[in-house]
């Protein structure tokens, strides 16, 4: 029992609809540890990121050491331990986008919002990130704003779209 109290994280609420969603997924996967990544996808989909207490909850449900869950989460780029922001701006830095000026867009974002890739504004409104290649190379340079792919974009147009969506001026 000691190991349970050794982890200084708060308990999740069983009535939280997001936890219910995760619980349903775990049940669907028959509590199999090999479905860990699928379950993490569900959890991140529900929360937008992976809070520590949720990881502990998943570890217990799958009977895995929390360290195993943590090591898996930190291995994959897709998973994030902190909030990515209410609105996200993901700049593709695949080769085609790189050749066509992804860096200029990143520079502009830093200048305008003071955000480097991986950073979020203090009010959590906007997060900037980079993607390896989103496979829209024909539309380079491409930027994904809140899941909408914007192709052949200029840095100025991106700033405008972000301002529209987030209300940051």
């Amino acid at each position, binding site marked *: 029992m000691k190991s349970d109290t050794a982890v200084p994280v708060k308990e999740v609420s069983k009535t939280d609809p997001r936890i219910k969603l995760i619980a349903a997924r775990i049940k669907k996967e028959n509590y199999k540890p090999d479905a860990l990544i699928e379950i993490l996808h569900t959890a991140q989909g529900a929360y937008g990121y992976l809070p520590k207490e949720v990881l502990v909850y998943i570890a217990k449900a799958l009977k895995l050491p929390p360290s195993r869950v943590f090591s898996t989460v930190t291995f994959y780029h897709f998973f994030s331990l902190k909030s990515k922001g209410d609105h996200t701006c993901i700049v593709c830095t695949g080769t*085609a986008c790189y050749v066509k000026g992804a860096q200029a867009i990143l520079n502009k974002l830093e200048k305008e919002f003071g955000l480097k890739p991986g950073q979020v504004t203090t009010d959590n409104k906007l997060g900037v990130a980079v993607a390896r290649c989103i496979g829209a190379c024909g539309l380079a340079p491409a930027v994904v704003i809140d899941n909408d792919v914007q192709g052949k974009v200029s840095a100025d147009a991106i700033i405008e779209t972000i301002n529209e969506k987030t209300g940051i001026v």
Partner: protein
Amino acid sequence: MIRHELQALTGKVREKQQQYKHRICVCCGASCISSGSEEVLNKLNEEIKARGLEETVEVIPTGCMGPCNQGPLVKYLPENTIYQKVDCENLQRVVQSQLIDKKPLEDLLLFADSREKPFVDAAEDPFFKRQQKIALKDCGDINPDSIEDYLAVGGYQALDKAIFLMSPEEVISEVKQSRIRGRGGAGYPTGLKWETVYKYVSDQKYVICNGDEGDPGAFMDRSVLEGNPHRVLESMAIAGYAIGASKGYAYIRGEYPLAIKRFEQAIKQAGKLGLLGKNILGSNFSFDVEVRIGAGAFVCGEETALIASIEGKRGTPKPRPPFPAESGLWGKPTLINNVETFAAIAPIILNGGEWYSETGTAKSAGTKVFALAGKINYSGLIEVPMGTSLREIVFDIGGGIQHGAEFKAAQTGGPSGGCIPAEHLDVKMDYESLMSLGSIMGSGGLIVMDKSSDMVDVARYFMEFCMDESCGKCIPCRVGTKMMHDLIQKIGERKATRIDLDRLEELAVYVKETSLCGLGASAPNPLLSTLRHFREEYESKIQQEG
């Protein structure tokens, strides 16, 4: 559904399609969607209804048609006329001209803004004329959401043929005869791989489809999964029958939500019709497929790392042997093939291995899909016979370099490949020729660069990629990529000396030879190939002694 019911259903579907005089395909590939093709599709449906044409005109969403940067694309069949940059405003003019006035609308024809005389029949355009589509055939003509559409073009006939008319040995022999090699990049003979897995005796074997397309600049697997998911599914089932597996996994990148959605839907549809699951088409063969979603790790394209990821673990590679063919997923014999490889299997079974081997070169049979991007006029997805020259791809198909600039290099094989300079424009695109130039075929990404590209920076870009993506398991890759990256950066900043350059070259060889998996072993390739073909750029940046 049992066997004769499949034939009956296929007949019925074809009959139903023949009642339409026209079929309008709206490209809903990832590129066209982000240019607004879904709105065009909705508007087109309204337009057809408003004009009372819904009895004779069928409107469908399709997968990628190819010329991605001209989108949204709308294709009229049977005329095979493609319109580019269609939006909700100019759509009416297209419908009026094409369907009512019965003449093509010249100013919106594909490539109308760049060709003197655009083609009414798109197949006549050099972009398509020089292509030969096998893996991508039907992609862009059928609705990926509809299994009926796939049946109408002969879908699941190859599976039917394999199960009922061929033994597993015959299926394998057909694949061997086709001489197809793995399209994921390494080019291992597919038939041989199948035979090896077949020979291992085990209570359980697995088929894995590798859809973890991680190379930046490559998007063919995405387009196949999004545009023709059933083809991949059918081929996976054929592979299962051949090697004796009853379970398959499709490992698809998390960055491709549409591909995941369409593939999962395809699995459901096929299951409902009895084309997957227990006793397929009434035979003794049972096969199930499950999707596994990647979580953003380039190294998971490596087969042992991919297997670890399917098992829910960190995706770190293992030393080989044992190869997955002997001990793969959960220690069982496992066959892993790339999406594009699977896309060619069903046609091979249907038309015969010999038919496939007639295309391409002596050592590289068949066709290869390339993703054209960078400073090229017509970027997009093409499929050409192996052995087509780089010049043909860049200039005849791709329409040359943007703004009439001078060609400098083409990068193939992503972070594992290399750059091909202008003096080798006539190189034949096949596994051996690319290797001899210090590049690789890789998955088929082809990034064109013009004179404005700094090759030292290109090498640094790819090294940074490998450094970030190194899983950290083996030291040569984990430490070596970091050291090489810092040295290239130092050269780029003009702070390096000749000693640094010598050390860099020495390191590259060490990392290449001592890394555990393909990621590390090929990480020095972009550096070595730019050093080989553009050494003067490095030389000009290093400080001269004294």
